[in-house]
């Protein structure tokens, strides 16, 4: 899933370590999310959105639209 975590983090001038500390996770988690290797849990996604004062869909972009999975 595409995300804008790195953009928001850099906007705040935080390192990955600083963001990790604020969220109570490891730097590896931040790195894995930013490089699209890991989709965070819903509680962590909500915490990230709250920290950057944005909504979850502003932070994590899903291009799925209703009807995309329909066969016809």
């Amino acid at each position, binding site marked *: 899933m595409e995300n804008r975590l790195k953009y928001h983090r850099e906007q705040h001038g935080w390192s990955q*370590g600083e963001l990790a500390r604020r969220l109570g996770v490891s730097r590896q*988690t931040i790195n894995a999310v930013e490089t699209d290797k890991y989709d965070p849990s819903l509680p962590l996604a909500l915490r990230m959105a709250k920290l950057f004062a944005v909504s979850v869909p502003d932070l994590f972009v899903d291009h799925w639209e209703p009807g995309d999975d329909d066969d016809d």
Partner: protein
Amino acid sequence: MTDKDQRISRKLVTIAALSLGAGVIGYFGGYAFGETSVETGYELSMSVIIALAVAVMYLTTAGLVLVGTAVPKFGENVLNVEDAEEIEEMRAMVLNSAFALGSWGAALLVIALAEPAGPISPLHSFLVSAAGIVLGCYFAAVSYRHSDELMMAVNREAAVWAYGLVFCVIGGWAMAAHADLLAPPAPLDVMTGFYALVLLATCIAAGRRGMLKLR
């Protein structure tokens, strides 16, 4: 060359030097043990040699992580972290994980060295080995409790991969042996298989999350 490139280059050189050193020590250690075996009459089968190699791999990794955690300035050059501070942040998880690896490695080493392959009586070997496995599980559980959600996810994925690999490799070997296509695995081979496949599963799970890329 950026700071990050320099850090990664330094890490690669350190790891290569340590691997070379461990290889040389392992070679001469193995040679010396082989010589002793000839004199004492120990029966070193291929199963035992492979089990010992896997056990030493666990013990070496545990030792490296322990030293790296105890001396973070050294650890930042051998562990996959950005700096010494990151080791401090993950200290509880990493330390317990190293204790678990060490306990499991020692357990395999001791069971592999049961008579007639080594000097330890089978009963003592079994008891010490079983204690090592239980102790390892305890440390692994403590490490898991100190893990954040990414590490927990990697642990769960590694368990799934390990199950699949064990089913395919050990199960496949047993099937082929039952059909008289291969010699059946020795009990120690099954044990070594668990160890090696769990290690492989962990590498696969970590690699899929980009955690094997040097930082």
